[in-house]
């Protein structure tokens, strides 16, 4: 098995909304297994688009995305959903929790989609929420939590199906510095468990924990920096 868990080849994404917007252009990228990487760059230069393509949320206009040896651009929508379910966990800037569900149910739902029986869902979701320090908030609704707590629920949910890769889009974008610091601790904890973490961020604090930083500008990969802390 290759050491690179994620690989892109000449990845290009052009949005057609009456006029063409080039979001990514010929990006070749390799992300090592078990690494903690950051994708940085100015707003609107294609960072999130790259993350969406790596995560199989979107299709490139051209080029390829490999997850291990699987070409994500060559599989159908249902298979792609299966990959998202089993292999990838997502954490978003705005948490994206389901408002009508409790904290516990928000984690359980990811397990439900993977076909885990309700009893096991309950146990595993409880364990994951304990891992992020929310064992006393199981029955709370997302609107009863602080931003930091919501982001911890999102992290617990992203880990529900024990994915190999965790993709985070501006995870500290809506957090204060204390919550950001807690988030980083959780991210490092997850990475130490062997998960590959890819974070899109503007935050220098977040980038400090990364092993590797990719700079995206004008839709192109400008630089790739190894960070030895």
């Amino acid at each position, binding site marked *: 098995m290759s050491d690179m868990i994620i690989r892109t080849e000449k990845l290009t994404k052009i949005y057609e909304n009456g006029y063409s917007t080039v979001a990514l252009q010929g990006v070749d990228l390799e992300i090592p297994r078990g690494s903690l990487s950051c994708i940085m760059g100015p707003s609107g230069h294609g960072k999130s688009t790259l993350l969406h393509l790596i*995560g199989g*949320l*979107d299709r490139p206009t051209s080029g390829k995305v490999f997850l291990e040896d699987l070409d994500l651009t060559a599989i159908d929508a249902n298979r792609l*959903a299966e990959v998202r*379910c089993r292999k990838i966990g997502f954490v978003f800037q705005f948490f*994206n929790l*389901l408002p009508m569900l409790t904290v516990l149910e928000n984690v359980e739902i990811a397990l*439900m989609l993977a076909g885990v029986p*309700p009893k096991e869902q309950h146990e595993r979701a409880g364990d994951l929420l304990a891992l992020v320090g929310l064992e006393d908030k199981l029955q709370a609704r997302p609107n009863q939590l602080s931003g930091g707590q919501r982001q911890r629920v999102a992290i617990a*949910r992203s880990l529900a199906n024990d994915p190999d890769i965790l993709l985070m889009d501006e995870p500290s974008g809506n957090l204060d510095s204390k919550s950001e610091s807690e988030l980083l601790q959780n991210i490092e904890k997850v990475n130490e468990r062997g998960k590959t973490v890819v974070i899109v961020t503007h935050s220098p604090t977040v980038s400090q924990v990364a092993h590797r930083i990719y700079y995206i500008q004008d839709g192109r990969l400008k630089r790739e920096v190894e960070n030895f802390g």
Partner: protein
Amino acid sequence: MTRGKLVLKNLTRKKTRFLFTVLGISVGIASLVTLLSLGTGLEAEVRKQSQELGAELVVTPKGWCAYEQISVLTGETLPEAIPNADVEKVASIKGITAIPYLVQRTAIKNQPVTVVGILPEPMKQFKNWQVEKGEYRLDRESLVVGFSIAKQFELKTGDKLTIRGTEFLLSGILKEMGNRDDLVIYLDLTTAQKLYGVGDKVSFIAVKVDDITRIEQYSQEIQERANVAVVSDKQLIKSVMAIVGTVRNTLQMIAAVAVLAAAFGIINTMLTAIHERKREIGILQALGGKRRTIFFLFLYESALYGIVGGVVGLIAGFAFSFFAAPYIQQSEFTAFLGSAQTVEIFNLAVIGQAMLFSVLVACLAGIYPAWQASRLSPVEAISYE
């Protein structure tokens, strides 16, 4: 977490919208149930009345249509067209008992009431009538009435009843039979013929045969001897049912249109829900929800509208048909609906049909919105604000 729980939570988060969408389908199903119940009750009542007529053959004037045949069972006014000569010819056939009826109308306290001229003794035996109060005397001056008529108009034996300007003594009240016999004033046949000026004619003749296996021969013999038509009780039911069925089907079609209108309400509600929950659909997709999963989550929501709407509609429909039936104006078609007993509440076939229709329509209404939801692009959905 189960899919059912998720569907339920999504469905009830907008309670007012949920309520109005359910009400839409409930109104449609209630009207369908009302008409199905009344229709089923009507059919059952036609069979019951036919049985209680007690005749295997009905002799009618030639050329009677099904509408007039219905009146044999409902007790509506009938044209008098069979002369006494023909009655005697029919009665003279061995192995049959012929009971002539002259069916007319009068009014008590401005309410229409059926008056039937009969041969007193043969009729009493034929129907196995018992007297509740007074005596069974029918002649030029006396008459008897059915149980319900006496109750409805608070009549007592010894009361005077005026029919077409002639005063009669109410000599007796019959015991309750639980059929249309309870709703009739009975006069001696000759007296009734004179009173209504119909000469020696009668409306129809009910015929009871001694040997049921020879019913075809009797029917043929009657038609050979007299200038009349003969229908068997089965044929009578068949032709009446054909009309009842047509009326019932038409009414049900109207009710079905109401349910279909409600289906558009469901489509509208579901499309609105999908628009509002676009981001949540994206979240489910990001978490690994397949197109099929998203499709069925929304289809289940739609089906649940059908189930809840169906149950509410059933209850409302049964309640309405039970309470409304007595107030439905009497006519050729609805004459049987004069009492609540004609409505079959909790008829399993009606429940099954209405629920099936409700869920089916709701599912069909949900297909397009569910398909739309399942086709959303994950990144577009999750980025939706």
